[in-house]
């Protein structure tokens, strides 16, 4: 008993370990809640499949029900709590179950197939958007009050207030359909048929070709926010005493800009960046559906519409894990970047 108590005490003193355990617990709670909530959604996979069979093939309800029941190995009549324990048992073994609709396909292999596309498109856009955002934001902070500041600030405020799906729809409708500036149909999917993955120019070109519109949409919809936050952060840093003292010390302008202003101005943005990293995985259900970009968001969208519980559950799980882990990472890394914040025993 004493030994267990001492071990627990040691664990509770190690902050990183404690945060980690807390995160695991949060993941468990979220996953459990999701399990019940998605089963509270109206209708169920069998019902939706039956309706599909009836409307598509003109079957009678009886025929459709018989067909559906034989196809699905799931027992929805089993008490919910027992289903939940089954689910947990499998989860601990790393088994996320089998998709209801794409029969026999493991949820893990669905995720493995679709996740990289989302990671790629959202990751690249985050990189572009963040880098451009902080450069432009800092630039207009230095040019405060000039006409270029007024113009960029207004554009950034407008962009940051438009939801990304509206931007996506506008690109699709105007650039793609009305003006026909881009071959919108050929851009569907995440890869053209017949292109072999590999480190070849054709492959890389094709990947960017298909991801270009989602990336453009993400960048347009997020860059305004980065610009505005970086601008205000830079402005408040420029007013700090140490910047004035640095000028009095006769430091080189470049040194002041990067190590004194930039380094400090970027600190508050760093937390948002790490949290955005967590959301890379979730991608955007709406953007991927609008451009039929086959990433994890698109999988989530189609699994929701067919109530494919295991797939939904699996996608929600990885989104949850990555968001929570990103938050953990933000906490741990922030103390590395800002010496004033040191993680100590107390909270």
């Amino acid at each position, binding site marked *: 008993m004493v030994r267990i108590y001492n071990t627990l005490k040691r664990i509770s003193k190690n902050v990183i370990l404690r945060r980690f355990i807390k995160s695991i617990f949060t993941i468990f709670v979220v996953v459990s809640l999701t399990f019940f909530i998605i089963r509270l959604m109206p209708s169920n996979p069998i019902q939706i499949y039956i309706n599909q069979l009836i409307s598509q093939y003109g079957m009678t309800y009886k025929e459709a029900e018989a067909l559906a029941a034989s196809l699905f190995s799931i027992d929805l009549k089993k008490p919910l709590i027992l289903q939940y324990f089954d689910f947990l048992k499998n989860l601990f073994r790393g088994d996320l179950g089998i998709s209801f609709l794409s029969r026999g396909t493991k949820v893990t292999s669905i995720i493995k197939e679709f996740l990289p596309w989302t990671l790629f498109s959202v990751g690249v856009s985050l990189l572009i958007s963040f880098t451009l955002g902080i450069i432009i934001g800092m630039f207009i902070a230095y040019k405060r009050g000039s006409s270029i500041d007024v113009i960029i600030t207004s554009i950034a405020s407008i962009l940051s207030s438009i939801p990304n799906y509206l931007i996506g729809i506008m690109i699709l409708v105007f650039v793609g359909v009305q003006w026909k500036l881009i071959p919108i149909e050929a851009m569907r999917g995440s890869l053209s048929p017949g292109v072999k993955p590999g480190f070849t120019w054709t492959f890389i070109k094709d990947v960017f070709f298909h991801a270009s519109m989602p990336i453009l949409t993400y960048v347009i919809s997020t860059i305004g926010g980065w610009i505005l936050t970086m601008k205000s952060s830079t402005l408040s840093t420029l007013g700090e005493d*140490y910047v004035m003292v*640095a000028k009095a010390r*006769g430091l080189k302008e470049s040194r002041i800009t990067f190590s004194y202003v930039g380094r400090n101005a970027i600190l508050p943005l760093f937390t948002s960046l790490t949290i955005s990293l967590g959301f890379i995985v979730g991608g955007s259900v709406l953007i991927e559906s609008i451009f039929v970009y086959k990433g994890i968001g698109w999988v989530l969208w189609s699994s929701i519409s067919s109530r494919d519980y295991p797939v939904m559950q699996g996608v929600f799980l990885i989104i949850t894990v990555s968001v929570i882990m990103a938050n953990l990472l933000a906490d741990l890394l922030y103390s590395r970047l800002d010496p004033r914040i040191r993680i100590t025993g107390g909270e």
Partner: protein
Amino acid sequence: MENILKIEDLYIEYKARRGLVKAVRGVDLDLYKGETLAVIGESGSGKTTLGLSIIKLLPSSARISQGKIWYQGNGKKYEIVSLDNSRLRKFRWKEIAMVFQSALNAFNPVIKIWDHIVDTAESHDIKMTREELRVKVLELLRLVQLDPERVLKSYPHELSGGMRQRVLIALALLLDPQIIILDEPTTALDILSQRSILELLKKIKEKLNLSIILISHDLSLAAELADRVAVMYAGSLVEVGSVYDIFYKPLHPYTMGLIRAVPTVTASMRELISIPGSPPDLINLPEGCKFHPRCEYKIEECLKEEPKLIKASYNHYTACIRWENIRNGKNN
């Protein structure tokens, strides 16, 4: 005596929504080599603006509308107001260093003290190896009575306010400047740290042949440290003289008011008298002498024209037309 700094007819204005704030108006001032000159006055009298203008580090809303500042040291002669940015950068800290009142925030929070030292040295292309630089810094930090090894490894937030002020003073001495401007060096500190900074400044003054401009509203600090005192009111100098003349034989009603408003330990207990009224609005200044609305000596003539500094005795100047009455203790 040889003057190292000469301020000539300096005017500085701030742009504000209500109009132009005339922060410095027609200041003429000399700083002699090796002396300590205190500039004293109330908050808002323009003394910090004057200090900043000497290294041309005014905020963007400020403008030097007239005047010249001559610097002569290290065998070089400059006019500071007309220096371009790159020469100004090399001039700052190398020739004139400034210790700010807000030493608490004077250091970049994300880099260590040693990196501040290196930054400063590198920006001025100091011909020293890292090791030589280190030796010099250790000596300076010992001079300001700090534990050098520990301080160099610290981040700014790991040091107390008094320690940071000492580090800033040591940093100011790094490039062997000819002049150090101390802007309220003790204001942000508790009374014990104030005392030890004062002792430290005295020691530095004796040890190094520096010219010091001390900007302060703390009369006791000025009295202990300064050789000469310049009293500033509403952007102008109203009295300039030796520290003895200013504190024992003041010839301007404002200086007298300032001294009466401060408690002393040595003098017998007497009532503290504050100066009636409040400092003037620097946008709409009164006609004539700017002090007349608060002055017990005013006569009709004071409302007509603003008096210039008048020589009252050797090295003692006052901007009061009634200085003779003040000297003779008569008010009629």
